[in-house]
């Protein structure tokens, strides 16, 4: 994918600072938009296995909300003169989507929530917050606002998951571990220092991770902050910290 070559850098606007780094923001936005679209697909699939009308409505509402986030990120790209690509079949995202679909096939509502709300959202919220702190102008504001929204809508899922854990703690924790190995394993590879598995099929050229310091980001921070957010979310669910620490140390690096 090519970077759009005519970024709008005519005035001393908020976007000026971003223009010189357009290709980096393009890759960052591409990951964000793709993540949001995968979430749209996941929530839409989830609606298909929900048992009551309220749950169906909730899932569809979440799907719509994620669609709005994808649009907002795309619009931010346009402000910078960037066309933001997306590819839900890109290597890692496809594997994440497949992992989710396997739980849909098993009609395991709780497993789906664990993947989407605990694992994927942890990485989204923590990463967006970091980007929100350094991205210029409205780009930063949008990332920060979407991080806050994602964080807000997790409460309902958390109460469902806590109730599910209370029914059978061992079974719940075993399930989280099984999903952790698969889903967090993929995210661990995706956020690893080097793209050991080849091109991610989203970045427009070489892996963007090495270029992130140019815009004040670091892949190490994104990985660390995401892992921290994930562990804290598991704490809130009541999983023993010493157990989840062991899981975290066993992730691929």
């Amino acid at each position, binding site marked *: 994918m090519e970077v759009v070559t005519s970024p709008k850098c005519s005035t001393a606007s908020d976007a000026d600072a971003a223009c010189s780094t357009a290709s980096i923001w393009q890759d960052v936005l591409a990951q964000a938009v793709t993540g949001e679209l995968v979430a749209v697909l996941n929530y839409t699939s989830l609606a298909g296995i929900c048992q009551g009308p309220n749950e169906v409505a909730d899932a569809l509402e979440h799907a719509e909300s994620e669609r709005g986030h994808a649009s907002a990120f795309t619009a931010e790209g346009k402000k910078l003169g960037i066309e933001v690509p997306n590819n839900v079949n890109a290597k890692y995202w496809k594997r994440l989507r497949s992992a989710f679909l396997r739980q849909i096939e098993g009609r395991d509502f709780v497993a789906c929530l664990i993947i989407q709300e605990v694992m994927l959202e942890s990485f989204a919220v923590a990463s967006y917050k970091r980007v929100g702190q350094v991205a210029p102008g409205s780009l930063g504001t949008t990332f920060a606002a979407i991080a806050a929204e994602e964080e807000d809508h997790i409460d309902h899922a958390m109460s469902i998951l806590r109730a599910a854990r209370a029914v059978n703690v061992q079974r719940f924790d075993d399930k989280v571990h099984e999903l952790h190995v698969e889903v967090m394993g993929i995210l661990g590879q995706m956020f*690893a*220092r080097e793209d050991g598995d080849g091109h991610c099929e989203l970045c427009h050229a070489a892996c963007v991770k090495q270029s992130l310091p140019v815009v004040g980001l670091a892949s*190490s921070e994104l*990985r*660390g*902050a995401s*892992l*921290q957010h994930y*562990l*804290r979310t598991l*704490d809130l669910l009541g999983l*023993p*910290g*010493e157990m*989840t*620490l*062991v899981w*975290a*140390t*066993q992730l691929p*690096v």
Partner: protein
Amino acid sequence: MALDFALIAHQESWRAAADVLAVLRGPGRAPIPDADLKEIFPWFPPRAVCHIEHRSVLGHSVHGIYIDSFIPPDRLGFAHRSENIERVRAAAACAIKAGARIVSLGGFSSILIEGDSDLLPEKGETVFTTGNTLTVAFVVQGVKKACGLQGRDMSEATLLIVGATGDVGTGCARCLAPLVNRVVLNARNIDRLRSLAEELSAGGTAVDIATDLQQLSVQADIVICVASLESPSLLLGRLGPNAIICDAGYPKNLSPDDGLEGCTVFFGGLGQSLGGMSFEPDVHRVLHRHPFPNVGQGCVMEGMVLALERRFEPFSQGRGFITPERVQEIESIAARHGIHLAPLYNGQGPLEEVPSQREELAG
């Protein structure tokens, strides 16, 4: 399940941090590469790393957890104080949530309640102790033992305490001043130095003070380094022949190799449990890198000692309250449960012949 005790501490080197994570990661997995370790480690929220069972020689045992605050080993300095206090606070919250009845604060962690116990989160039934009184006990015992091994007459000796106005330094000064010929106190805060010197002088001890080691003209026969020295060379020219040096700082960084040839250097403040300790997962050798089994810092052992005695109280809190009487009290409690001064050693190895624990128990 309520716990008898919790220990809060952190790793003093990246090697130690890597070893802890390697144990947790399990034997089938390659170690985390150093570069990744340094990126990931600082982001771990404080949490329990292992469960500990500590056995008394009286036959009963107590159960607790070790909580790592995951302070990165290269961020122990003053510049990171606020960030580190937040980590220790989170670790303290973890201990409270786990239901620990008493919590010992090891290494850097003790600053949280040495200075201002209001920094602690809402405590509920959990009590906190810095553990400094037992550290003082083991430092003082170590100095006496080293002098005995060298056939040194303490009453003729000049004692230099580096970091004298901290909680441990003050406690050591109070315990040892009556036993030596002269005491030299070194610390950065001149007002606190003067105050301590006045107190010790009133007891009949000859006392000198110095905020700068370079300005000292006296030669010390015994040195206790409570504060880690920036460089061992700061001691050169200030040591008498065959001086005895107790490295009670954290991390311990003094060695006879550092231009201190002829001196006896030992690591101070360490105790050994004859009843023994078990760790699950087994990080014992990683957390306690000593040449002898069941050895630990006095500060972390104090909580276990008090738990074995069923005395769940904040035995050591604040700064400057450690007295010889309190030191004697914690020493007696520790001894009752089989916790004694650890055999003396330094980075080069043991300084004394040591009977096996089985022989010691039989004796």
